[in-house]
C-alpha cells in the first residue's frame, strides 16, 4: 500500500458515510500513542495548528499556521496543496464559505486531542452538525504504507544502535537522566526526530518509568523502552540490563519472558485476532506460574504490547480483548514485560511487522538479558 491508495480508501469511506469534505485537525501537541488525524492524512508533524482538508471529489489541501511552517509542510505532503495562514480557523471559515457546503456533509477528525476551547470553536463553526470522522482515518492507517514500513525498519536500526550505546555507557554511579539525555542525543544524531525513551533502574523495579536523577548501583536492573521516531514512524525495543552479573534467578525469569515473546511472535500472522497473540504470550508466562503478575495491579494494563507508528495506534493493544484481525503491513510492539516476584519488573520486546505469511521482527538482534561490568 502507498499513501495514495490510503487516500483513495478514505475517500471511498467518505462517500459511504455521506461526507463530502473531511477535515483532520492537530494543534502540535504530541503525546505518545494519541491520535493525530493531520499526521495520518499528510505525514506532517506540525508545531502549531494545522488542518488537512480532503475533498471527496479529489482535491486536497492543508492549512498551516504559522504561515512560515508552510514550506516544511509542503515537503512532507506533496500530495496536498499547502497554504500558510496566521489563523487556521479563520482561514477554514473562508474556505467553507467559498465551498458553500452544508455542515452535515463535513466530517471532522482529531477534535478529541485538541484543547477543549479550540475543539468547541471548531464544532460551533459547523453548528455542531459535522460528523465525527476519526474512525475513517484510523481504520485506513492501521496497515502501514511501504514507505512507513521502511521508516519503521530504519527507526528500529537506530533503536538497536541506541541499545549498543547504552551497554557502553550504563555503569553504577551514572545518573539515569544523564544516561537518557546522552542516548536521546545519540539516537538523534542517527536521524531520530524524537524518542519516547523510558529508562529507570533499581534493585527491584515495580515498573518502567521516566528517568530520574537516581544514580545506578551495582546489582540494579536497568529497564528501558527505546522508542525512536524516524520520519514519522515510532518503533520500540524493550531491554533489561543487569549492573553486574545476572543471577540464576534473573536468567531463569528472563528466559520465561523470552519464551513468551517467541510464542507470541509465532502466533502473529494475518487473519488471526490480536487477542490470539496475547493469549500465546500469556500461555507461556501463566504456565510458568506467574499468571497473577501479568495483570493489574502488577501491570498497569493487561497487555503484551501495543500498536506502533505515530498518530495512530492501530492495531491497538496486544490484549486479551482486542479482536482486531491482523493484516499485512500492521506493525506493533510485542513485549511480555512484567513484574516477577524474584526479580522485579523485567522487559523484553521487539517491533513486529505482519507479513503476507506470518510476522517479522524488525530488530536484527532480539532481546537477551544484558550485563555490564561493575
Amino acid at each position, binding site marked *: 500500500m502507498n499513501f495514495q491508495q490510503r487516500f483513495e480508501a478514505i475517500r471511498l469511506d467518505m462517500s459511504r458515510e455521506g461526507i463530502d469534505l473531511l477535515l483532520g485537525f492537530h494543534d502540535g501537541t504530541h503525546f505518545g500513542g494519541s491520535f493525530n488525524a493531520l499526521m495520518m492524512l499528510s505525514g506532517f508533524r506540525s508545531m*502549531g495548528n494545522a488542518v488537512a482538508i480532503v475533498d471527496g471529489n479529489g482535491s486536497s489541501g492543508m492549512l498551516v499556521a504559522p504561515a512560515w511552517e508552510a514550506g516544511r509542510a509542503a515537503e512532507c505532503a506533496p500530495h496536498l496543496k499547502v497554504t500558510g495562514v496566521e489563523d487556521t480557523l479563520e482561514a477554514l471559515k473562508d474556505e467553507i464559505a467559498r465551498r458553500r457546503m452544508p455542515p452535515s456533509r463535513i466530517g471532522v477528525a482529531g477534535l478529541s486531542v485538541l484543547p477543549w476551547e479550540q475543539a468547541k470553536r471548531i464544532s460551533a463553526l459547523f453548528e455542531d452538525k459535522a460528523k465525527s470522522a476519526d474512525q475513517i482515518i484510523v481504520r485506513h492507517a492501521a496497515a502501514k504504507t511501504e514507505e512507513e514500513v521502511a521508516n519503521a525498519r530504519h527507526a528500529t536500526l537506530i533503536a538497536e544502535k541506541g541499545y549498543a550505546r547504552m551497554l557502553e555507557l550504563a555503569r553504577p554511579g551514572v545518573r539515569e537522566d544523564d544516561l537518557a539525555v546522552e542516548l536521546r542525543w545519540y539516537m538523534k544524531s542517527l536521524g531520530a526526530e524524537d524518542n519516547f525513551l523510558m529508562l529507570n533502574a533499581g534493585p527491584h523495579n515495580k*515498573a518502567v518509568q521516566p528517568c*530520574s536523577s537516581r544514580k545506578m548501583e551495582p546489582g540494579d536492573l536497568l529497564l528501558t523502552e527505546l522508542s525512536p521516531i524516524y520520519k514519522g514512524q515510532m518503533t520500540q525495543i524493550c531491554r533489561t540490563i543487569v549492573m553486574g552479573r545476572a543471577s540464576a534467578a534473573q536468567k531463569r525469569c528472563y528466559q520465561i519472558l523470552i519464551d513468551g515473546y517467541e510464542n507470541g511472535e509465532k502466533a502473529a500472522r494475518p487473519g488471526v485476532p490480536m487477542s490470539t497473540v496475547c493469549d500465546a504470550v500469556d500461555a507461556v508466562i501463566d504456565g510458568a506460574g506467574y499468571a497473577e503478575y501479568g495483570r493489574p495491579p*502488577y501491570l498497569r494494563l493487561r497487555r503484551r504490547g501495543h500498536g506502533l507508528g505515530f498518530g495512530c495506534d492501530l492495531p491497538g493493544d496486544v490484549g486479551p480483548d482486542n479482536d482486531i484481525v491482523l493484516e499485512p503491513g500492521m506493525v506493533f510492539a510485542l513485549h511480555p514485560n512484567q513484574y516477577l516476584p524474584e526479580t522485579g519488573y523485567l522487559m523484553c520486546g521487539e517491533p513486529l511487522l505482519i507479513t503476507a505469511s506470518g510476522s517479522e521482527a524488525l530488530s536484527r538482534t532480539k532481546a537477551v538479558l544484558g550485563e555490564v561490568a561493575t
Partner: protein
Amino acid sequence: MLNMHSLLLVGPYDWDPELMPRTEFDERIRAFWARIPEEVGSFAVIYGDSRYHAELAYLTHFVPKVRSAMAIVPRTGEPLLLLPGSRNSFSSAQRLSCFKNLDLLTDPARAVDQWVRDHPGTPKRAVLLGTAAMRPQQYQQLLGAFPDNAAPLEASHTLHSLMRVKRPRELAAIRRGCEILSAAAGVLAEAQRSGAQVTAAVLEAERAANAMGAQDVRSLFSLDGGASLRPFSTLIERAVEPLQASMAILYAGYWVEGLMLCSARPHAVRDRVAEALRLMLAQAKAGAKAGDLADTVAAAIRPYKPHPMLGACLGNGIGMAIEEAPRLDAKSDAVLEGGAVYTLCAGGTDGRQHAMVSAMVLIGDSGAEVLWSAE
C-alpha cells in the same frame, strides 16, 4: 517562538532543594492565594502536560515528563499531585516535586470529590489553573465535580501576573540558562564557521547545552538563508551559509531563548537588525511602551521590511513558559514591567537576505540588564 516539543521529557527535572527550596514554593502559593478572595476559592485545581505546565511547575515544581497530570493546591495545607498510569510509577514521580503527597488520577471529578471528602470543612470552591490546555473529555470530566456552579473561575491570569516579576532564585536560574545559551550559541557559530553540516552543527550546540545541565533544548534552523525556520526532522548532510537559528533552552524550570544568525560573511540585513536591537535595548526600561519600541525598530531596519516570521512582534515575556504574557508588538498597549524578563527581537529582509536576532533582558526602572544577546 513556536517550536517542537518532545513526546517524553528526559532531562534533569527532579526537584533540587539547593536550587529551589520548599520555602520558595510555599511563598509562591501564599502569594497566589493572597490575590484570590476567600469566597472565590479555597483550593486550586491545576492541569499540566509535557508541553504546557508553567502553572503546575510554578506552584509545585512538578513537570509531567509524559502526557499529563493534575494537582490540587489548597489555600492552606499540603498540595496533592495526581498522576495517571499506575502507582508502580510513583517512585520516579516523587522526585519531581517538593510535595510528596501523590495519588492516582483516573477521573478528574472523582479526584476533586475525593479530595473534598478528605478535607472536611474546606468549602468546595475551586479555581482552575492551566486548564485551557485540557482535552475536551478531561475538561468535561473535571466540570463534573462542579455541577451546581458550572465552571469555576479560571485564575491563570492572576497567577501569570505573579509569575511575571521574577524572584531572586528565578533570576539565578535564568542567568544560568543564559550562560548555557551563550555557550551553545558559540558552539553553533563555530561549527557553522568550520563548515559543519547543518544538523550536525545544531546537534553539537544542543549537546553542549545538555552537558551544562539544560533540561531541554529546542532548536530551529534555516535551510533557506533565514527566510524560515524548521525543527530537526532528519539529518541534513550539507552546510548552510548563512545559518539562521533559534535556540530555546530550559534550565531549572526556566526558559531562555535566542535568535541568532551565523555567518562569517558581510550581511547587510543582519547589521541593520542588530542595530535595531541595540536601539531597542537602550530604550527598554520599566514603563516603556511596546508601541514606542516598535517605532524604534521599524525606523532602524529601514529600508528593509520586517521579517515575515516576526511581523510586528518584538518579543514576549519568558520564564516557565517560552511565551509568557505580554506579547509585545506594534499594536499592543503592553508596557515593560520592572523585574520582569523578556525576550526582545528584531528581524528584517530585503527579499534575498534575511536576519533575526534577539536578546534576553531583565527590566529595571532606569534600563534593561542584558542577560544574553545575539550581538
